């Protein structure tokens, strides 16, 4: 039943729907335009398609239907303010009592077989636990994988992505090159930055790593120790490596120590040497696990 009430702003008055010729005409135009757009859309598709035309025509087609319906609803359909009774959400005392009575009656049938119920529950629980085990098949034990890269399998040549060995002199001073261990250019944990420092840059090797550089060439893991993005921005003039993901900044001249941003660990360094043919080799694995940290990283 309609209750008297104040009018809403922008609404026609309550009561019988007022049909307005102009409103109906507007709705009619909307539907007509929509129909036309659908036809043109079919033609556009048949003629080879065009993303902009398809999108625009779909928009006109659906928009025409929508606008037509809304205009029709707003102008011509009834707007009586109707009130509906809202009952209490809670069940009544009688309903609860009746439910409880029936439930208790049923429970009598189950009897006092506590032990049986307990065993049934444990069977269900055990089944549930057992069903979780196949999840284990989803992936291997994390194990040592996170602390080992292909460099750790022994001295190996550094190569570019297409497998070409890198020689001393390939990288110009102030230059940078991304390299991999030979035979593992698809390894996700092995991308390495080979940097050729300028003679006048003051490189300060970490303790115990004095012989890890060759001819002003230094190599660090390319994986950021924050969340693993490749640290691709080498700012040659300042000797800084910047990671584009979260702006961790590493000082190349100080063992790639983080100087700004969320990274908390230096980029692991690779021990370099030159073999008899003048090619750069890695003598062993990085100075620490590459990439982002995890629970037992230091164990």
């Amino acid at each position: 039943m309609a209750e008297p009430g104040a009018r809403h702003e922008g609404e026609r008055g309550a009561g019988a729907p007022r049909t307005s010729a102009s409103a109906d005409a507007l709705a009619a135009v909307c539907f007509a335009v929509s129909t036309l757009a659908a036809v043109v859309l079919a033609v556009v598709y048949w003629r080879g398609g065009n993303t902009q035309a398809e999108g625009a025509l779909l928009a006109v087609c659906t928009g025409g239907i929508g606008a037509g319906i809304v205009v029709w609803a707003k102008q011509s359909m009834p707007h009586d303010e109707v009130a509906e009774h809202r009952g209490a959400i809670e069940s009544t005392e009688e309903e609860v009592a009746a439910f409880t009575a029936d439930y208790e009656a049923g429970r009598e049938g189950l009897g006092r077989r506590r032990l049986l119920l307990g065993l049934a529950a444990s069977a269900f629980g055990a089944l549930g636990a057992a069903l979780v085990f196949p999840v284990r098949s989803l992936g291997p034990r994390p194990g040592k994988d996170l602390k080992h890269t292909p460099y750790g399998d022994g001295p190996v040549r550094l190569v570019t992505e297409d497998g070409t060995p890198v020689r001393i002199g390939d990288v110009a001073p102030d230059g940078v090159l991304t390299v991999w261990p030979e035979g593992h250019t698809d390894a996700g944990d092995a991308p390495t930055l080979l940097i050729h420092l300028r003679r006048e840059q003051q490189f300060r090797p970490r303790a115990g790593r004095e012989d890890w550089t060759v001819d002003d060439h230094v190599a660090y893991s390319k994986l950021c120790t924050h969340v693993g993005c490749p640290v691709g921005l080498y700012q040659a003039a300042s000797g800084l490596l910047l990671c584009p993901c979260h702006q961790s900044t590493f000082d190349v001249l100080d063992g790639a120590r983080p100087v700004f941003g969320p990274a908390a660990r230096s980029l692991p360094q690779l021990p370099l040497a030159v073999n008899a043919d003048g090619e750069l080799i890695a003598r062993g694995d990085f100075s620490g696990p590459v990439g982002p940290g995890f629970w037992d990283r230091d164990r």
Partner: protein
Amino acid sequence: MTATRPRKPPAPVTRRVARWLDRRLGAADFARSALNKVFPDHWSFMIGELALYCFVILILTGIYLTFFFDPSSNVVVYHGSYAPLQGVRVSEAYRSALDLSFDVRAGLVMRQIHHWAALLFNASIVVHLARVFFTGAFRRPREINWMIGVTLLILAVFNGFAGYSLLDDQLSGTGLRIAYSITLSIPLAGTWMASLLFGGEFPGADIISRLYVIHILLLPALIAVLLSAHLFLVVRHKHTQFAGPGRREDNVVGERMWPTYASKALGLFFLTAALLCFLGGLVQINPIWLFGPFSPAEVSSASQPDWYMGWLDGALRIMPGWEVRAFGFEIPNPFFPGVLLASVTFALLYLWPFLEARVTGDRAEHHLDDRPRQRPVRTALGTATLSFYSILFLGAASDVIASSFRVSVNGVLWTFRIGVFVVPPVIAFATYRLCKELSARDGLPTRSRVTFRQTFRRLLFSSDAASG
């Protein structure tokens, strides 16, 4: 001549079909009550519908895309019609996405409508959540529905992330790397969880096909089920309404479902579809051909996730480089902004109705909405929280801001580090005062007598014990 009984003219088709159905379903009574349902028709009550309609568009366009997309990490050589990638080795997934974009008629418009719809799906949910929060519509009996809604938000965010990561392009692959590393940072279980999810070390060969199942089956099914429960509860509780003439706690005043409300709802669906089609055809989104195929050794500057993950990315950026290390174990840096902050955010969201009830001592049923100005403390806390997350969102764009305005990115990040603590209290204070002003001016009574100062005490000791 045999006498023939006069025949009645045959009933119209619609009536005969309805009769046929009713003989098998017996739904006339139920259908009648559905027709007569009353819905309050304030414009802010229609925002949840926007999310529903975006979801429908997502399903429709998504089904189309599944016929063309190939969720495989196998490497192939691209030979489609996009010249700058001719002969490049890419994954099947990336190749099928390129084919959809360049060589399938109407493929690109479907892809773009789908992606814009995902952005607007998440945006509508957030605006709807804000409306429900600021009007207090989460109070009893709607706490369960609020929690279902928060779950829907989480599912929408995850499903969006899974969806755009399927394409295996450089930008989304970088995002997967970050997701892997955040999983890795969880103490004790992190390395296991990451290995089980990715099938080994990053990147592995399994994640794309697994995300595909998650994206087209698991999460949409969960969303559909929870959405149905969400709508069922709205019908069961009947919608809330603003106070006004003739409106009480024990009635609902508005328009009948049939024909007006149903027509408006249908019209809004088509208008939403129209906007999404407009964006999908005319505004380019996610140009994966420029980003290139994913490689774990490459990255582009200006790498951000889609907007609804921006708060996480911003938090990761502005967090200083602190870690917790002891006895050879560590809690890595990304855990704090990536896992802890996210958990606290959603925990607070889930618990909000109960926290508020504890502080105000108000555990009654409510069907009349508050006007935000009538609840200065709640509104102030809400706007402050929104400003906190907005700063995190802006933080995710730190490098874009720095290069657009030619300022130092380090300075931008420091500004956000300070701003994230300074701005919310200022906003809270300003909002509180504004609410007080507006409600005094309009002669509206404040609905609760709790002040900021009392809030903490009541939170800890419950309002029943505290008196001031």
